[in-house]
């Protein structure tokens, strides 16, 4: 079972190592981890996708909450969140099949953001299933490179994660 964890953390160097190490040493596999700053530059947000049972999910949430650098950690529920991923896909393309590839990209509402004589780069935003589906179709052509951001997710509606309104701790690294 796949779970989506969201975490607000201190935006310090080293926090990523603390979080990823936590998963590794408990034998929990991270499928994807995306991190970036938030509206508050002292706070970063992580979105972590893990595969495991509910107990494992709860255990990881609690272990992450123990980190002094973790400000808020939650498991998001699949039915009450939106999730998106950005993929950049470089495909071999020439004059013969370029328009065919672009048609496929249109169907997926992707964008072609770079064209050269022998290849083009596609940008696609969507949930994982959509990215996966496009990659499958493009498999009929020749995929040269893929870069994916990993999943980002927010809870729908009024559920909001906010860092507690006290000052940031002393820099840890």
């Amino acid at each position, binding site marked *: 079972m796949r779970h989506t964890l969201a975490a607000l953390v201190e935006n310090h160097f080293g926090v990523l*190592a603390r979080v990823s190490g936590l998963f590794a040493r408990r034998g929990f596999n991270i499928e994807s981890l995306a991190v970036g700053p938030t509206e508050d530059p002292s706070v970063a947000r992580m979105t972590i996708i893990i595969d495991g049972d509910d*107990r494992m999910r709860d255990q990881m949430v*609690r272990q992450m909450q123990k980190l002094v*650098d973790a*400000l808020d950690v939650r498991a998001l529920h699949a039915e009450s969140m939106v999730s998106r991923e950005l993929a950049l896909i470089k495909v071999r393309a020439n004059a013969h099949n370029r328009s065919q590839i672009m048609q496929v990209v249109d169907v997926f509402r992707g964008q072609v953001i770079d064209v050269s004589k022998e290849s083009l780069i596609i940008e696609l935003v969507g949930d994982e299933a959509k990215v996966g589906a496009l990659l499958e179709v493009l498999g009929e052509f020749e995929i040269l490179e893929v870069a994916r951001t990993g999943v980002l997710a927010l809870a729908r509606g009024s559920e909001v994660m906010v860092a507690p309104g006290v000052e940031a*701790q*002393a*820099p*840890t690294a």
Partner: protein
Amino acid sequence: MDERQETSGAEMVVQGLLREGADVVFGHPGGAILPVYDALHGAPIHHYLMRHEQGAAHAADGFARASGRVGVCMSTSGPGATNLITGLANAHMDSVGIVALTGQVGIGLLGTDAFQEADILGMTMPVVKHSYLVRRAADLPRALHEAFHIAGTGRPGPVLVDLPKSVANERAQAIWPEGTPRLRGYNPDPPAPAARDLERAVAALEGARRPLLMVGGGAAKAGAQAEVLALAETLGCPVICTLMGLGVLPGDHPAHLGMMGMHGTPVANLATTQTDLLIGLGVRFDDRVTGALPHFAPNAKILHIEMDPAEIGKIVAPHVALVGDVRRVLQILLPLLVGRDVRHPWLPEVDSSLGGGFGYPRERFTDGRISGPDTVDAVHRATHGRAVVVTDVGQHQMWAAQHYPFSRIGQFITSGGLGTMGFGLPAAIGAQVARPGETVVCLTGDGSFQMTLQELAVVRSYNLPLKIFVFNNGYLGMVRQWQEMFYEERYSYSEIWSPDFCKLAEAYEIPSVRVERSEELEGTVQRAVETSGPVLVDVRQVTRENCWPIVPAGKALHEMMVPPHS
């Protein structure tokens, strides 16, 4: 202070330690930490010069356990810092609050594989509660203040502060934070349990017919002796202790069935299989305590009272969990039990083959050879049950846990979670420093002792009146026991040659005595305890004695083995 007055990072360290009340430091100097040692020169801080950094970490650990304060250790960068790691891991596993201050190469050299550079922050991440690499002297006052706060509050643990030499030399204005640090990612005081959970706990206590209190290290850390006693008396039920919970309930209390787990009493272990409500007080259900998990407390609901939310459901899924400091939670729970039908006295049934099941069966020798349990008995009598007992790891450790009835929290100092051979002597040094007027005994084995015996130099040079008893049986005893029982008597590298420990003590100018006959044990131990300064007793013991009972690894608690003739 003049606002423009600047101090060096090294001076801030000394000032910060003093502001935190940390006037005792265990350490070892070296290149990268030299500026701090320069600032320590003449400062009103008692620095104990250890002979190995591992010893410094264990001494800080022993000091913390014996004093209830945060212990401090200090080392240089590179090998000095890496030598601390075992001690940090040990403190982490047993939730002991220590602050480790390590020197580091200068900021400009970080990441260049400079001389004596080690990424100690990265290496220690799995074994610290938190850590800092201080990049500016101006950050030091807050980092130190936060480090002590984090180490000592909530579920305590080790905090590392890595200090590059250039930062120690940098001058800056020190702005000292006042009061308790407010960290947005750290709240050591969880909110009181919800009324609904408290009601469910009370209902579980009312519904139980055979409740059982299981007392762990969290109850000891919380200082919950009075509350645990009150709960035991309210419920009228038996009490069992984990290794780390020993001392919370007086060893001779009538409700106390003894230690549980791999080397627990038969009656304590059978209590877990017969109880219908296991009340875990500050426990984490370690595998040495539960035995085979599928068979642990098979007939019981679990009421888990524990301060660390991450321990709830980690090993055992509780029926009800109350998160919080054990003492505080019991102070809330106890009044709710007044007038409720929660008193359910009972005693576990013990098969006659286990000889009653109370106490710990032992092997008996009538030929004048000395046994491990007899040695513990002699130490117990000679110290009137009041000594601070520090152990190493192995058979002697279990015998100490079994046969020295502890009566107060902090009286038994042992490496529980990590099981660190070599912990004993340096931890005893820390404990003796913390409790200068008290009798501190170090019970160690010939194997464990040889891992850190260089710290005898510290015992001598500070004239610490430690009483060291070496349980000398010529083997890594617990390894030998397992090889006998579970590896068809293939004694692979468990027989161990030792130097003459009395001559060794003599070389360290520590009085010593050897005892080989049981009729001389009592008197020798008595005289050793009455010696005013340090003393080492080389207790020559039965070479192939086993520690009983034993629950084989992977077996259920009721599958304990007892000696054939008991």
